[in-house]
């Protein structure tokens, strides 16, 4: 590089630069917060409106000038929501299905992930690729046949039909297998040398080490039960086995006359509440579990 090209950067008026840049920083900060707080408000608004509406009287709800805080707190909306939609039974059904299917699903997932991560057998890679391939196929494709399969098995309107068909999640197996594979081989070899059985090793070493993943899976599975709609509607829509989402939708579409929106909103709030509670206490695991799917690549 020749000498004449060595020109130092343009000399500037430093004082002017400093104040200009301060103002810019403040403006940018303000805009940034304005945008993000506005977005947060939009995201939160439906929740606020749900709670707000759920506490109003029908008369207040219907006013053409909306009130942003109920004049008279109608806590009774919640009790009538609970009875109108028969939420107690729906909650119990959903909890039962959620807990049982999560427990069984965990066992199956752990065993399968262990086999794929630690054991060697013929055709392992082909089998695993095959499993991954099924992830690409939309579930609607399965439903058509599964519907007649479960009918064939006489499972319509039973808890079984809500639990068994979706016990295996290839995605969870994949997730856990990745986690298992990160555990050093040496631990397994050491356990083998010590004569530890596979199952004991699984229970004593691998499960504790992958606990965060297992917790994430548990929560996601429970959330799945809580939110499932299509399949339960199809195969178990009787009073005895109906799950929360169906119950909610049905309770307020089959009524005669006007929909009592405040009560409906109270029911929606009641249905949403457990998820929120779980989220508040286990936020880390839920967000981890969800984002884990993003780190697949």
């Amino acid at each position, binding site marked *: 590089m020749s000498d004449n090209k060595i020109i130092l950067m343009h000399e500037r008026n430093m004082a002017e630069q400093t104040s200009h840049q301060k103002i810019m920083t403040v403006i940018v900060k303000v805009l940034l917060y304005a945008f993000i707080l506005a977005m947060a408000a939009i995201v939160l608004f439906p929740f606020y409106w749900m709670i707000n509406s759920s506490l109003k009287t029908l008369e207040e709800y219907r006013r053409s000038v909306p009130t942003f805080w109920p004049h008279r707190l109608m806590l009774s909306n919640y009790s009538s929501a609970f009875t109108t939609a028969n939420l107690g039974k729906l909650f119990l059904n959903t909890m039962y299905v959620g807990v049982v299917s999560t427990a069984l699903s965990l066992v199956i997932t752990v065993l399968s992930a262990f086999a794929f991560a630690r054991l060697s057998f013929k055709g392992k890679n082909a089998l695993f690729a095959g499993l991954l391939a099924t992830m690409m196929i939309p579930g609607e494709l399965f439903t058509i046949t599964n519907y007649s399969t479960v009918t064939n098995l006489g499972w319509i309107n039973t808890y079984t039909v809500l639990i068994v068909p979706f016990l295996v999640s290839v995605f969870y197996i994949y997730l856990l297998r990745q986690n298992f594979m990160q555990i050093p081989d040496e631990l397994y070899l050491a356990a083998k040398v010590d004569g530890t059985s596979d199952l004991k090793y699984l229970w004593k070493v691998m499960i504790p080490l992958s606990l965060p993943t297992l917790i994430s899976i548990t929560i996601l599975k429970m959330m799945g039960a809580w939110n499932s709609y299509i399949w339960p509607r199809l195969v178990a829509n009787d009073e005895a086995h109906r799950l929360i989402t169906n119950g909610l939708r049905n309770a307020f579409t089959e009524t005669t006359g006007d929909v009592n929106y405040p009560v409906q909103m109270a029911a929606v709030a009641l249905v949403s509440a457990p998820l929120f509670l779980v989220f508040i206490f286990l936020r880390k695991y839920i967000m981890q579990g969800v984002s884990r799917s*993003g780190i697949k690549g």
Partner: protein
Amino acid sequence: MADIVDSKNQWKAWVYLSPAIALLLVFTVWPIFNTVRMAFLEGYSGLMNVGGAKFQFGIGNFRKVLQYQRFLSCLKTTSLLCIITVPISTILALLIAVCLNSIKILQKPLQTIFFLPYVTNSIAIGMVFAAMFNIVGSFYGTQNEIIVTAGIVNNIIEFLGGKAVNWINYGSTYLANMTVMVIYIVWNALPFKILILLGGLQSVNKQYYDAARVDGTSRRRIFSRITVPLLSPMIAYVVITGFIGGFKEYTSIVGIFGETMGPADDAKRLNTMVGFIYDSLSTNSQGRSSAAALILFGIILVVTLINLRVSKKRVHY
């Protein structure tokens, strides 16, 4: 590396895998096989099959479905929803994620707030959106329009000087219906995308930004030349999953419109591909239902492949 231990007991692995495999065979593999079979038997119906009817092998189901107005309308609605919501939600999520990443105060609580829609029941919150957009007990007739109460969204529009819009009730337009759906779906899709993109941003080496600052790079250029390219794998991921999810849209519409999938005077107007598949199922047309499912699968496959192809060109490293 997992194969270090030369396991002579191969059967053990199969024992561990057996519950998963058994269930997958019954509830995943067989359905795939059977769906394809039914799709290619013309006019296949479970009831007629029991009744002893014979079905010709052929592509009649596909032809029938593809010529059917309703199916095309489902296809249109579904595609429109995808094409509109995926870019909007991705861009919005990207902006929010970048903003979240660059603030210190309130970052954690805001992050939590933006994730909230993920932990909701889409039917339940759909009902809230319906209430927000509703015109309660409105009775239309050209000379006789009575609006008892407008939903909060219309209240806001009127407050801002606009005219109330009939969003979801009978007499509403397709455009109005779609607007509500787009808003709801974007709202619903944001948390996942923000989470993934924010995770991506936080794993980007801070030094890239320091280097850019030292070089006097403007914020806009940092965003377009550094942030977006470095995030491109995550962006590709949320776009692909967004499209796949978008083509399977169903419950969000049930949440807002109920199972009529549209305003009362034009039920099924907003029906989607998945909705179509279930409807065919309930009229015992498993052949057409299967054909529709395979078409859906084909679309998702093609869209995903295109996405992968595009991202191969655009995604860096």
